[in-house]
């Protein structure tokens, strides 16, 4: 069971003698093999939440549990895909994808077999010996995703993985991620500030508001996706044309907007 559970998570930062609240009483869970996206404006603490599941940051109070264990350190059971790819510039595509397996002590031959499978799956054939700087942004992120999937992790944590890509590449990557997650369903926590991306990819969308970050609402997309048969549509633009998609997107937009209007009003007074 690779469930992620956030239980009354609070996080305060100290800055210049002042403390400010980044997360306020956040509770939700990502069920086994569920795809949950968090949307919210910058500063709402969504990345902090993801880093807590990764074991790179810790709550001030409350708990974060993955697979029924408190998260105390980073580990290969919770792979992270970073916005800035974070590929090792001195390692070739092959070596980047195989690095986690090498750390785990997987035999060379076995490693080569797994790496080859993901090279093929992510459309990286012919680039095995290339270095990251020789690849486009989209290709680099494919390598980073392959590197995470190669470990066969129970949990995948993706921190705005397509945020640094141009619009066209982004769409292609979104379609590929859907394909990949149907092939290998995983427990996924996905951070984005694109509402469309969240609705297109996720089973549930957590909408957050900033300062302090808290959950505004959790929206069930999965049941609508299944009812409306989005899976049968090949292309992202076809899904985005569906009335049900537009409806959900608008609903989330309104939630985020309502918060911003609130801020504007508060500032006017």
């Amino acid at each position, binding site marked *: 069971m690779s469930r992620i559970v956030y239980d009354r998570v609070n996080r305060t930062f100290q800055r210049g003698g002042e403390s400010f609240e980044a997360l306020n009483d956040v509770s939700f869970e990502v069920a086994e093999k569920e795809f949950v996206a968090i949307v919210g404006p910058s500063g709402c603490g969504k990345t902090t939440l993801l880093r807590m599941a*990764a*074991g*790179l940051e810790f709550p001030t109070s409350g708990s974060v549990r993955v697979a029924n264990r408190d998260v105390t*350190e*980073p*580990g*290969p059971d*919770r*792979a*992270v895909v*970073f916005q*800035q790819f*974070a*590929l*090792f*510039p*001195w*390692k070739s595509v092959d070596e980047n994808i195989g*690095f*986690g397996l*090498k*750390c*785990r002590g997987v035999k060379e031959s076995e490693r080569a077999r797994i790496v080859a499978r993901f090279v093929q799956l992510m459309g990286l054939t012919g680039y095995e010996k290339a*270095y*990251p*700087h*020789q690849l486009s942004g989209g290709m680099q992120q494919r390598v980073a995703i392959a*590197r995470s999937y190669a*470990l066969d992790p129970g949990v995948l944590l993706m921190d705005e993985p397509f945020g640094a890509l141009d619009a066209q590449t982004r769409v292609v990557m979104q379609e590929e991620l859907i394909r990949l997650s149907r092939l290998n369903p995983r427990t996924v926590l996905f951070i984005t500030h694109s509402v469309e991306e969240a609705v297109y990819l996720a089973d549930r969308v957590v909408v957050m508001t900033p300062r302090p970050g808290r959950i505004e609402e959790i929206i069930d997309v999965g049941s609508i996706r299944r009812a409306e048969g989005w899976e049968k549509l090949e292309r992202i633009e076809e899904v985005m044309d569906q009335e049900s998609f537009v409806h959900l997107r608008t609903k989330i937009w309104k939630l985020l907007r309502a918060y911003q209007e609130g801020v504007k009003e508060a500032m006017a007074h």
Partner: protein
Amino acid sequence: MAAVIASRRARHGPSRREFVVLFVTGLLAFFAAWQALSMIGIVPRSFLPGPIDVLQTIVRLSYEKYSGDTLWRHLLASIGRFGMGFLLAAAVGIPLGLLMGWYRWLDDVVSPFFESLRFVAPIAWVPFAGLWFGTGIGGPILVIFSGAFPPCLINAYRGAKYVDRRLVEAAQTLGASGPRMVTDVLLPASLPSIVAGLRVGAGLGWQSLVGAELIVVASGVGYLMVQAQLNLNTPTVMAGMIAIGLVGVAIDLALRALENRINQNWGRES
């Protein structure tokens, strides 16, 4: 139009062919002026020996012994000494720098000494180098070491200190533990900086050589030059200077090639 061309030049710099032409022209002009100056006779020959004189001296010194040996044997002795001092500086400076970058407490212990000592010019170590290590092999090595050591240490330290946090985190989430983290992430991440330090260190070490060889009795280009100076044999002094310069350039080119190669593989602009 001319302005357009000029600004284009300024942006792109001279092409490779233009560079060769300019380089050769500059060199020829320099030697011509030098030769003319010494031939006209405004300055006495011993004050400024001409290039032809110096060249003849270099040729003669390559088969005729001066101060006990030929120029090449003196040069070889110097290079050997430099190699030992430089390797010692790298062998101590790089690990110490890396450890200081990784462990704050070590940084706090070593930095005060290091920061004040590194401003002492290598030549200033000569009296104590001779006193402590004698005029044999130890003394000159200490002087070369004191020139090459600070850049080796500082650059390794910076390399270790400013490793991209994100890469370390990525490695942690992929399951990299202690030794693997060092060999596969921390060291390669610091390598461009380490090699830059080696290059600067080699330059300073080689520069310290003449100073080092002032306290050597029997061999080395520095020794040759000191002996020649005592005999007012200025062409030989200048031959020594040229030999030192050329070897310095060769050392720098070799390390620069290594640096470029690493930067290329690391995807950095060099």
